[in-house]
């Protein structure tokens, strides 16, 4: 029963990781921008949701809208006013990374100043587990997290495969010059990528706020997992990042069946090293020759 319990826990955690990793992978794959501040987007969305529900007393749907609005706005503004000028001046990959890393730290401190630096969580009965079978506890959030992830991935897939904007985004990841030749604006497409990638972290942020709680530094862990999942899944592959996020969540939890709790995080990175050594292109990535 312990194994089944750990698998169910892994599903919930994995669904959350999958959403955050897919958002990061979408942005990185399309724009080639190492958006380290993706963790900050997660933190902003989670705190706005908490603020809307707890401080403003709004209905949860308005809380979701506020979190999504804040995340999208942050992503687009960052792209427009920080990444675009750096790219215009032909800043290196490292310059973009350092700038994004700095923004992550600024956001962490601003959130600490505005919302306080202690632990907060959204109180909901949905996070409270019920005993389904003897010694098997499941909270409604598990089902919600998995269902929401599936809906989000189907929606993103439909968008990328069946809309002009989605096709243009895929084209942007392949060949920026060709996109310009067709009269499309890479800058505008980049904004689409940031909007979509940022909105994908919103459900994950909301589930985290409700299940494990928040502190201003919560984005670091999110970013670490997103990065690992992007490499394991194959750089640029949203489907790969989603599978990898799920895999990491499962490994983190199922590992506890046999090994001590202190090893669970280390095993995440053991998976990462395994892929780097034996399958550097990841789950669904394509091998490249430079």
């Amino acid at each position, binding site marked *: *029963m*312990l194994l089944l*319990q*750990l698998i169910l*826990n*892994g599903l*919930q*955690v994995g669904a959350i990781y999958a959403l955050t990793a897919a958002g990061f992978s979408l942005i990185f794959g399309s724009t080639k921008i190492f958006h380290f501040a993706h963790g900050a987007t997660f933190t902003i969305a989670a705190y706005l949701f908490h603020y809307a529900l707890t401080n403003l007393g709004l209905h949860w749907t308005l809380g979701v809208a506020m979190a999504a609005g804040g995340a999208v706005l942050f992503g687009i503004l960052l792209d427009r006013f920080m990444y675009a000028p750096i790219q215009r001046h032909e800043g290196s990959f490292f310059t973009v990374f350092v700038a994004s890393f700095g923004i992550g730290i600024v956001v*962490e*401190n601003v959130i*600490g100043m505005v919302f*306080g*630096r*202690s*632990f*907060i*969580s959204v*109180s909901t009965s949905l*996070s*409270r*587990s019920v*005993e389904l079978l003897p*010694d098997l*506890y499941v*909270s409604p959030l598990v089902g919600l997290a998995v269902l929401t992830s599936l809906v989000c991935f189907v929606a993103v897939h439909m968008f990328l495969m069946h809309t002009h904007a989605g096709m243009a985004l895929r084209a942007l990841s392949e060949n920026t010059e060709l996109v310009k030749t067709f009269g499309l604006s890479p800058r505008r497409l980049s904004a689409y990528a940031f909007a979509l990638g940022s909105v994908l972290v919103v459900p994950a942020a909301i589930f985290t706020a409700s*299940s*494990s*709680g928040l*502190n*201003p*530094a*919560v984005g*670091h*862990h999110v970013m670490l997992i997103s990065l690992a999942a992007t490499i394991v899944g194959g750089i640029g592959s949203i489907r790969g990042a989603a599978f990898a996020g799920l895999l990491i969540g499962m490994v*983190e*939890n199922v590992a*506890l069946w046999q090994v*001590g*709790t*202190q090893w*669970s*995080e280390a095993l995440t990175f053991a998976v990462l090293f395994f892929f780097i050594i034996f399958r550097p292109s990841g789950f669904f990535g394509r091998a490249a020759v430079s």
Partner: protein
Amino acid sequence: MIRKRLPALTLAATLFSSSVALADDVSIGAVFPLSGPNASYGDVFMSGANLAAKHANEDHMLSGDLNVLYEDSQALPQHGVIAMNKLVNVEEVPYVLSAFTGVSKAISTLAQRSETVAVNGGGVGPDLAALGEYFWNVIPLANNEVGAASKYLVEELGLKRVTLIYVDDPLGAGILNELEKTLEPLGGELVEAHSITPSAQQFSGVAARVRSSNPDAVYIASYGAQQLQIVKQLRDNGVDQQIISYSAFSLPSLQALPEAKGALYTTQSIDWDSTDPVTKRFVDDYRAANGKTPTSYVANYYNAVRVFALLAKELEAQGKDVTGENLLAQRKATDKFELVGGSVSFQDNGTLLAPIQVLEVTGGAGEIKKVYAED
């Protein structure tokens, strides 16, 4: 001519007057977590230290104003060492407040080498009592707290099988060691010990492991945001057993967490209604400024600064410099200190002894369940 030289004269006068003012001021340092997941502790610690400095200045205990220079450790040893280096080598303070077991251990060698007194009021790792004569503790250490917790669980509640969830650092290792030592003689048993990394945030898997071992009580040895996440996730994932911890649970955010209601924790025992003048003034002024009763952490850092003020006052009266070496000698020469909580004395190893109380989280200030005399 005078008009031409006026700006230069003004500048010289300003520089001279400011240097005179600085020379009169007395500065001590503090290495606290001011950012990161444990920053809320820094706020609590600062409130105690600032209040003590304010009282010392109101009473004109020293020849100049007493200032506390704060540096951020993020509760991480490497940041703590950088902060301590700045305070010792740049600011040249004789006395530094420290917090967190890992940080305190990291800065203790520099304190010893530079003959700077470091005073801990927050870390409770048992080995903090053996970091050299320049390292003092104004807080009872985990060996006192864990002993009282084990006694209460086994003797008062009959809860003998205990599972420990501990953060993998010197504090966690110290508490594991103390639980192993104290439970067995009382007829209790440490069923399982789950080590977690300081950065871990997901504990649903740990909760499943705890449930499967079916203990009578769960001891949590963590701190900051992480300990709240552990409590919430244990309760959310069906762990209904008695939760117990150490003084880190006195954090206001934990006291307000609905899932923590009914949890037990230990702290040093301080009677907030005491009529002794030091305690009364501290409690009254803290309540007036913050609208709530202080916690033991606030009192500890108040006491840490007050110890400095008392020692420095005595040194100034004797015409001696306020240096780490002289502060140490003066502390050894002083039998009793009038601090918040009453009249206390330091042990030879530089650690204060105090009675320990077991409290229950009730949503407001904790409810005292039992007080154990210091041993």
